[in-house]
C-alpha cells in the first residue's frame, strides 16, 4: 500500500511539473511576461525593478526556476486589480466554489443513482426510455442556458428561490443558513445537470452488466430476497465505478463551475477568474490555473485511495 501510494505521489509530482511548464510557457513564451505580470499602470522605474525581481532579465530556464521557487513559497504574484497576493485572493473564494461543486455532486448522486438503478433494472420499460432520453438532453443542453432557464422559471416566474448570490453565510458557508441554502439550490442543480446524466448512464450500464454475473445468480440461488440481491450484491459492485467517476469528475465540476458561477453571480473562484480574464488581471489567472492543476492532482490521488478502500481486490493487493 505504501509503495503504491509513493508511486502515485511521484506520478502526481510529474504531472504537476508538466503543468507548471505549460502554464509557464503560456505566460512567458506565448504572451509578453512583462505585460502579463507587471501592472500596466506601473511607471518605468517600477517596471525595471519588477523585471529584476521576477528575473525576467535572465535566460528562460532560470526564469522557470525562479517561477517554481516563488510558487513553492506560495508566491504566485499580486493581483493588479485588488493589489493582494493572487493566491490569497483565490483561496478566499475557494469555499464558495467547493460548496457549489459538492452540492452539485450530492445532487448528481441523489438523483442519478436511483434513476440509473431503475433504468438498469427495467431496461425495456417506458420509464427507463424516458430517463435515457432525458440523459441525452442533459448531455446536450448548454449549462449556461439551463441556468438562465432555471432562474427564469424558479426565481422570476414562480419566485420560489433566489436567483443570484450566496445569501447569508455562517463561518463562510452558505449551506449552514436557511437563506444561504436556498441560494445554493439552483446553482447546484445547474452544475449537477451534466453529472446527473453521467451517473444515470454509469449506473444503468453497471447494473445491467452486474445482473448477468454468476455471483448475482448464485445470490438468488441462495434464496436471498430480490431487494437484498439488488441493494447489496449488485449495488455494492456498481458503487465502485460510480464513486470513482464522480470523484474524478469533481475536478471538472470545479472547472465547469466557472459557467454556473457567472450565471448565478456566485462569488467563487470561477467568477473571479472570468472577471480577471476580462480585466486582464494575469497574476490571478496564473495562480488560478496552478491551483486548479494542484486540485486535480489531489483529487485524482484521493479517488485512487478511495477506490482501493472500496474494492477489496485493490486494497489487499498492495499488502501482499
Amino acid at each position, binding site marked *: 500500500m505504501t509503495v503504491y501510494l509513493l508511486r502515485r505521489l511521484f506520478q502526481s509530482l510529474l504531472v504537476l511539473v508538466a503543468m507548471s511548464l505549460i502554464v509557464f510557457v503560456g505566460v512567458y513564451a506565448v504572451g509578453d511576461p512583462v505585460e502579463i505580470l507587471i501592472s500596466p499602470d506601473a511607471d518605468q522605474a517600477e517596471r525595471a525593478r519588477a523585471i529584476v525581481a521576477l528575473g525576467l532579465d535572465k535566460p528562460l530556464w532560470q526564469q522557470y526556476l525562479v517561477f517554481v521557487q516563488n510558487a513553492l513559497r506560495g508566491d504566485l504574484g499580486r493581483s493588479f486589480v485588488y493589489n493582494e497576493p493572487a493566491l490569497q485572493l483565490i483561496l478566499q473564494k475557494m469555499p464558495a466554489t467547493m460548496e457549489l461543486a459538492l452540492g452539485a455532486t450530492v445532487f448528481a448522486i441523489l438523483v442519478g443513482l436511483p434513476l440509473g438503478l431503475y433504468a438498469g433494472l427495467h431496461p425495456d420499460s417506458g420509464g427507463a426510455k424516458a430517463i435515457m432520453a432525458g440523459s441525452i438532453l442533459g448531455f446536450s443542453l448548454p449549462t449556461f442556458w439551463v441556468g438562465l432557464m432555471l432562474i427564469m422559471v424558479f426565481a422570476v416566474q414562480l419566485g420560489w428561490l433566489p436567483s443570484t448570490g450566496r445569501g447569508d453565510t455562517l463561518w463562510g458557508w452558505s449551506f449552514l443558513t436557511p437563506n444561504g441554502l436556498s441560494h445554493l439550490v439552483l446553482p447546484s442543480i445547474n452544475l449537477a445537470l451534466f453529472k446527473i446524466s453521467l451517473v444515470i448512464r454509469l449506473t444503468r450500464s453497471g447494473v445491467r452488466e452486474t445482473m448477468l*454475473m*454468476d*455471483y*448475482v*445468480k*448464485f*445470490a*438468488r*440461488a*441462495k*434464496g*436471498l*430476497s430480490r431487494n*437484498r440481491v439488488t441493494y*447489496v*450484491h449488485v449495488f*455494492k*459492485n456498481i458503487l*465502485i465505478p460510480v464513486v470513482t467517476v464522480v470523484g474524478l469528475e469533481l475536478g471538472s465540476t470545479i472547472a465547469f463551475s466557472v459557467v454556473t458561477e457567472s450565471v448565478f453571480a456566485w462569488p467563487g473562484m470561477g467568477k473571479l477568474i472570468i472577471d480577471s480574464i476580462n480585466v486582464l488581471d494575469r497574476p490571478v489567472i496564473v495562480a488560478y490555473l496552478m491551483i486548479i492543476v494542484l486540485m486535480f492532482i489531489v483529487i485524482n490521488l484521493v479517488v485512487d485511495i478511495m477506490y482501493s478502500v*472500496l*474494492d*477489496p*481486490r485493490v486494497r*489487499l493487493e498492495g499488502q501482499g
Partner: protein
Amino acid sequence: MFQQGFAVTATLEVRDLQTHFFTRAGVVKAVDGVSFTVERGKVLGLVGESGSGKSVTGFSIIGLVDAPGRVVGGSIWFQGKDLARLSEEEMRSLRGNRIAMIFQDPMMTLNPVLRVDTQMIETVQAHEQVDRETARQRARDALGMVGIPSPDERLMSYPHQFSGGMRQRVAIAIALLHRPDLIVADEPTTALDVTIQGQILAEVQKLAATTGTSLIWITHDLSVVAGLADDIAVMYAGRIVEDGPVSQVLDAPLHPYTVGLIGSVPSRNKRGEPLRQIPGMTPSLLKLPAGCAFRSRCERADEACLEHPALFGLREGQRARCFHPHLEEVPA
C-alpha cells in the same frame, strides 16, 4: 394432484419438463420433455455436451431461468409441491434452503466485494430468524465440514484471497448451510485441477451419504459420473436419450450417442486403438431436423429415424430413445 407412490421415496420427480427460450431468431427448445426421478440420498448424473440442455434443466428446477427463457410445460414435484407452479416468494423460500445449487466457475460465484462471512450469514438469515452470532457459528461449522482449515480466519476474508478449489468449497459450504434435501451441482469441478476435483468429489459423496441429501450432478465428464453417481441420464438436444443405473449404462450403453460419448473417453479405449469420436456437431436447437435429433451424426441412422423415437425401456431400469440400440453387446 398428489403424486403418491414415488413421493414417499423420491426427493424430486421431474415430468415432461419443457423450458423454451423466446429469442428474436425463434423459439429455442432448450429442454423439450425431460423426465427423471431422484431418490432420497442418491446421486443422479446428468450428462451431455454443452448446449444439450443439462444446465437449463438444473436452472429450471431451482427456478432461475432468466428471460427470454421460461418453463412452459411439465411439472417438477418436490416435497409434494410442483415447483413449476410456485410463486416467486414460495420458490425463494425453498432456494438455498431445501434446494441448493452449486455453480460451474468458483471464481465467479462469490461476490468479489463482500466478505465470506457476509455471504454466508445472509444465506442463513434469509431462511431462519437467527441472530448474527448464531448464523456465524453455522457458517463456521459449514466451512469446517467442507474441510476448510481455520474457518474463523477464513470467514473474515474476501473471495479473491481463496484459491479456486477453496472457493468452490466455500460455495459448497453455503449450499450445505440449511442441510438441503436436494443439491443441483452444475459442473462444479470442471474448472478445477484434477487433484482438487478428486478431493471435492470425495467430500461431496461423503456429505451426501451422511446427510441424506440428493444430488443432481450436471457434467460433461463421464469419468466423474462413473465414480459418483447412482443413476445417469444422458441428454442430447434438449431431450434425455438414455437413462438407467450408472454401471449398466456405462458398461452396456444402448444409444449410439452414449456409445460415442463413452468411446471418446481415452481411458475407456484399449491402448493403441484409435480414439473413437462422434462426427459432426450438436445441431442448432433453432432448426432441429424432424425425427431423431442425433440422426445426422449417427452411423446407424436410416429411414426409420425420420420418426421421433420414444424412450424405450430396453433392459431392466435402462431406457434409450433409439430405434437401433446397441442391444447386441451383452453387458460383461
